[in-house]
């Protein structure tokens, strides 16, 4: 396949993915908007006003970057895991397997489709947050870089999960038992500096801490961890996950007998 043909195939897959999640927007775009608005109202307005400052900002301002990041993580993961697994489940993956599309084009198409949904939901949540607080971006480049890399990482995570999944339960296990706890314990609602030394050290093993803090640094200018180390950690995970997902796809794990 020539580079131009690969580009056409990639755009086709990305368009298909975007068409899918926009067609079912009440399941994909609306729920995170409602959930995050509730977070803003309950944690930000009602409880937050009694908590006071955190990291030099009022509580609402402090949690907004974390909640935006949480939306990006959940939606980029959720899009790819459900779309790719449904494709396997309905056997429509065969449409791609019989075609001359190379494995990296298939992977890129799904990952970019997941990133688009993650970032679109992130944008919706950001706009909603403006009804509750004032946000100004301190470091535009870092903010965008962190969002893009995080969306890519979790889209890849969703792809790997879907590759191994053989039933619908398998695509719910990781988000429920791994992703949600890591996100809630990843410094979305608090500064890890508030934790005792032992738990602070344990928290540093949670990759989501780096993503939330790097994004918070981009928006508010404060972080519990070194921002460039955070970017390095995320990038390393993205590369490792990409190569692993590509290897799985190339050898046909979960999709070819």
């Amino acid at each position, binding site marked *: 396949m020539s580079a131009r043909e690969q580009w*056409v*195939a990639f755009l086709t897959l990305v368009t298909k993915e975007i068409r899918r999640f926009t*067609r079912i927007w009440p399941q994909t775009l609306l729920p995170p908007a409602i959930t995050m608005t509730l977070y803003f109202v309950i944690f930000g307005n009602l409880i937050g006003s009694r908590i006071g400052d955190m990291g030099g900002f009022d509580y609402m301002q402090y949690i907004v970057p974390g909640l935006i990041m949480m939306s990006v993580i959940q939606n980029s993961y959720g899009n790819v895991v459900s779309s790719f697994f449904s494709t396997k489940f309905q056997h*429509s993956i065969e449409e*791609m397997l*019989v075609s*001359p599309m190379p494995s990296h084009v298939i992977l890129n198409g799904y990952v970019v489709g997941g990133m688009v949904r993650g970032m679109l939901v992130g944008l919706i949540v950001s706009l909603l947050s403006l009804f509750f607080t004032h946000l100004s971006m301190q470091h535009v480049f870092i903010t965008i870089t962190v969002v893009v890399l995080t969306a890519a990482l979790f889209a890849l995570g969703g792809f790997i999960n879907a590759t191994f999944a053989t039933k619908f339960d398998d695509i719910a296990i990781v988000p429920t038992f791994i992703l949600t706890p890591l996100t809630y314990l990843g410094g979305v609602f608090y500064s890890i500096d508030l934790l005792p030394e032992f738990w602070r050290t344990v928290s540093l093993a949670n990759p989501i801490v780096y993503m939330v803090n790097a994004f918070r640094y981009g928006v508010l200018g404060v972080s519990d961890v070194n921002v460039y180390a955070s970017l390095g950690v995320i990038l390393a995970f993205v590369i490792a996950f990409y190569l692993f997902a590509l290897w799985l796809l190339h050898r046909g794990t979960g999709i070819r007998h």
Partner: protein
Amino acid sequence: MSALTIRNLTKTYANGVQALKGIDLEVKKGDFFALLGPNGAGKSTTIGVISSLVNKTGGDVSIFGYSLDTQRSLAKKQIGVVPQEFNFNQFEKVFDIVVTQAGFYGIPAPLARERAEKYLRQLGLWDKRDKQSRTLSGGMKRRLMIARALVHEPELLILDEPTAGVDIELRRSMWDFLTRLNEQGKTIILTTHYLEEAESLCRHIAIIDHGMIAENTDMKSLLEQLQVETFVLDLARPVTEAPQLEGFEVWLRDAKTLEVAVPKSESLNTLFVELARLNFEVMSMRNKANRLEELFVRLVEQNLPGEQAS
């Protein structure tokens, strides 16, 4: 030139089942080829390997001279596959399914839309283009898969049970469509359980059995191997027992129906003379089974003692 060349193809699944035990097959360009075999014989595995849905264990496959191992992209562009099971997204629109498939082959959107219209019209689905595919009838879904397989205009079309569950009228119209495609130069390989379909459409045939090719020849030569043909005779008057006819095997199916096995060495005239002599009046006559079916069953029974063909 060969449209498809398979050399020593083997496949052993992870559970240890050896589905293909060294298949050699050649299909000429422009041929209409039938791949037959009982369930579990290895037909679908062979098609799976050719269409890259199954990883082979060993051997070589090339399509129009392009190796599936070393020139995968070029080889894949030559093939269109119509699988047995519906394998499209049930929630996508008919038009989008065909256009998207073209995109996967690197065909730019304007040309993809043009081709999608052409094939959806040819297959009588243009009116349904904006419908979700799940709302189509079974026959329409099968035609949708044919349109999708043709959108990149492959030279080799592989159809796995294309008319399974399709009504007679639609089956005939699909036969006409496939015949026209073949006349236009497309090479067609099909698997089917309707042996009348294979006999009517195909010029060459391979019978696969226990993961090996049991027969690979042209249809005419194969049919000539048929040593005995069984006919069903409807009688004018009821009888109580089957007549004894020298050179023929006769069974009484019911009071007014006989089954007669006619060896190739005997003529039907002899049969009728004998029946007339014994005062049996025959009102009508038909083949018990399609000739190819009869041969197929005999071949499979020879190879699989104790097992039943399907």
